[in-house]
C-alpha cells in the first residue's frame, strides 16, 4: 500500500527523525574530529546492536498493543545460561550459545502463554516475569561471574566480517527481515490489526493468539541473542546484564513513531530512533558527560515522544 493516509503520517515522522539524525551527526562531527571516521561509526553501531535487536522485537510487541518489560532480565538470564552451561556443565561453547538463545525464546514464549492462555495483561505479566527471570539469573549465578571464554568466541562481539562488525551485520539482517515481515507480510498485517482493533481482528478470523505467542517468543529470542552477543563483547558473564534495557528499547520504539497503544509503528522508525539515541550517547560522552547523564535524557525523550505522539493523534482526529 503506497502512501495512504495511514502511512503518510508515519512517513513524516520518520522524515523528521532522519532530519534530526543528520543534524546530530553534523553537530557531533564538529565537536570531535574522529567522530565521522568509519572506525568510530562502526563502533557506535556495534555498541547499539544488542539493544537494537531487542528494540526490533519490541517494535512488534508494542504494535500489537502490548509491552514486554522482561527483556532486560531475559538478556541477563541467557548470559548466565551461557556461562553456566559452558563453564559448569562443560557443554561446547557453540552448543551452549544456541541453548542460551533458545532459553531466551522459551522465556518469551512463557510470557506469551501467560498473556494469551491466562489472559493476564502484558504489563503485569512481564512485570512479574521481569522479576522472576532476573531472580533465576541471580540464583543460577550465585553472584559469580564467568570469564575465560575462548578467543574464537569473541568474533561475535568484537570481530569483523568483511570489515563490518559482526553484530552490525546481524542487526542489519534482522532489521531488514523484521521490517519486511511487518510491512509486507500477512503476519505483519495481523500484528498491525491486533494493535488497531484486537476484537475485529479476532472476528475476521485472524490467528490472534498464535501471532501474539510468536511476537513474545521472538522478543525473548532477541533478548537471548543480545545476551550472548553482549557476553562476547565484554568477555564476561554477569547476572546484572541487560538491566534497564527495557527502557532503552521502549524509548527507541516510541520515539520511532510507534503508538504505545498499538496499531502503528515501523522498523525504520525504530532504527532511526536507535541511531539518534546512540548519537546522543556518543556526543554526550565526547563532551565528558558520564553514561548516567545520558539516561536522564533518554527518559526525557521517552516522555516527550509519547506527548508528541498523543498530540499528533488529537490533531489528526479533528
Amino acid at each position, binding site marked *: 500500500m503506497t502512501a495512504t493516509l495511514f502511512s503518510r503520517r508515519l512517513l513524516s515522522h520518520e522524515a523528521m527523525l532522519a532530519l534530526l539524525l543528520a543534524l546530530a551527526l553534523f553537530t557531533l562531527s564538529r565537536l570531535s574530529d574522529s567522530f565521522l571516521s568509519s572506525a568510530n561509526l562502526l563502533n557506535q553501531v556495534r555498541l547499539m546492536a544488542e539493544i537494537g535487536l531487542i528494540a526490533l522485537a519490541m517494535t512488534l510487541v508494542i504494535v500489537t498493543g502490548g509491552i514486554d518489560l522482561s527483556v532486560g532480565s531475559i538478556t541477563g538470564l541467557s548470559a548466565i545460561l551461557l556461562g553456566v552451561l559452558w563453564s559448569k556443565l562443560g557443554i561446547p561453547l557453540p552448543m551452549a550459545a544456541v541453548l542460551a538463545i533458545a532459553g531466551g525464546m522459551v522465556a518469551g514464549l512463557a510470557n506469551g502463554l501467560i498473556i494469551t492462555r491466562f489472559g493476564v*495483561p502484558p504489563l503485569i505479566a512481564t512485570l512479574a516475569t521481569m522479576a*522472576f527471570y532476573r531472580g533465576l539469573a541471580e540464583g543460577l549465578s550465585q553472584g559469580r561471574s564467568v570469564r575465560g571464554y575462548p578467543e574464537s568466541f569473541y568474533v561475535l562481539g568484537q570481530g569483523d566480517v568483511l570489515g563490518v562488525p559482526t553484530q552490525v551485520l546481524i542487526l542489519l539482517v534482522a532489521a531488514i527481515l523484521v521490517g519486511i515481515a511487518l510491512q509486507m507480510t500477512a503476519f505483519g498485517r495481523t500484528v498491525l490489526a491486533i494493535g488497531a482493533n484486537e476484537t475485529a481482528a479476532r472476528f475476521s478470523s485472524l490467528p490472534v493468539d498464535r501471532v501474539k505467542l510468536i511476537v513474545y517468543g521472538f522478543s525473548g529470542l532477541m533478548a537471548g541473542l543480545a545476551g550472548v552477543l553482549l557476553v562476547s563483547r565484554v568477555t564476561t558473564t554477569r547476572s546484572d546484564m541487560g538491566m534497564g534495557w527495557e527502557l532503552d528499547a521502549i524509548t527507541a520504539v516510541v520515539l520511532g513513531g510507534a503508538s504505545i497503544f498499538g496499531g502503528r509503528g515501523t522498523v525504520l522508525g525504530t532504527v532511526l530512533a536507535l541511531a539518534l539515541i546512540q548519537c546522543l550517547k556518543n556526543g554526550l560522552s565526547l563532551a565528558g558527560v558520564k553514561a548516567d547523564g545520558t539516561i536522564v535524557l533518554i527518559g526525557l525523550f521517552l516522555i516527550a515522544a509519547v506527548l508528541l505522539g498523543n498530540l499528533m493523534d488529537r490533531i489528526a482526529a479533528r
Partner: protein
Amino acid sequence: MVAAPSHRATQDTGWPHRWLSGHGQVLVVLGAIVALFVVVSFVNQRFLSPANLTTIFSGNAYIAVAAIGMTMVIITGHIDVSVGALIGVLATIAGTLAVAGWPLWMVWLAPLVVGVLVNTLAGALVAYAGIPSIVLTLGFLSILKGGLIVVTGGDWISDLPRGFFLAQMKLFGLPVPMLTALVLTLAVAWWMAHFRFGRAIYAVGSNPEAARAIGISVERTVVGVFALHGLFAGIAAVLFATQLTIIQSTVPPNLELMIITACVIGGVSILGGVGTVIGAALATILFATITSAMIFTNVSAYWLRAVIGGLILITVLADVARRRRQA
C-alpha cells in the same frame, strides 16, 4: 444473561465470612509470616534475637511506608516504577541539606515537599496528558536515577550531623521507623475507609466511568493519589536516609519491585479497585521475614529475587483467575 432467581445468588451474610472473602489474601500473608517464624526459629534460635527482630520490623519499615502510597496508586489502576529512584533522590537531598547545616526539621521536611511536587507532576501528566503510567514512570525512573548520579558524581554522603539519624531514635520505647510505619498504615487505612476522597480512590479504580457519571473527577483523584504517593515516598526516604551513617548515591536495587510486590502480595489487585494498606504493610514484613529466614537457614540469598518474582507471578495469576470467575 438469564439469571437464576435472585435470592439464591446472595452469599452467606455472616460477618466473619464476609470479611474473610474480602480479605483472604491478608490472612494468607499473616499465616505465612507466622509459619515462617515458627519453622525458622526451630532451625536457628538466633532468628528470634532482638537484633534480628528489630531488623525485620524496623529496618524495612521504610518500605512499608512507601507501600502506602503505592497501594493507592495501584488501586486507581495505575503504577509507578520510579519510586525507588525517587526515594534515592530524596534521601540524597536530605543528606546534602544536613551536611550543609540546615536546621534538622527542614532537612526532614524537604524530601516530603520535593516528593509531593515531583509526583504531582507525574500524576498530572498521566491524568491530563494521557500518558500511560507505565511509560511515564519508566521515563521518570531514568531521569531520577541518572540525575542522581550526575548531581552527586557517585559520591556517598558521610559526615552527617549527630541529630540527623531519625531512624535510629526511639519514641515511646519503639524504634521510630516501626512506630511511623505502624501509625501511618493504620491512619491511612482508617482514612481510606472513612473519608470521601479515600472512597473515591476505590471508586475510580473499580469503575472510572461510573465514577464520572456520579460526578467524581477521575483526573483530580489520580493527581491527588500521585501527590500523596510522593508524600509517603518522602517519608520513606527520610527513614531510609537516616538509617545508616552514610547515604549512598545509588538507589537501592529492586526497591520499586519490593514495594510493588508488597502491594500485590498484600492483596492489592493490579487490575485496580481492591486492596488495603494493611495488607501491603504485612507483605513487607513477610519479605523481611523471608530475607531473614533465608540468611538464618543458610539458603543462598541470591535466590531471593527468584522467590519474590515467583510469588508475584503466582499472586497475579490467581488474581486474574479469580476476576475471570466472577465476571
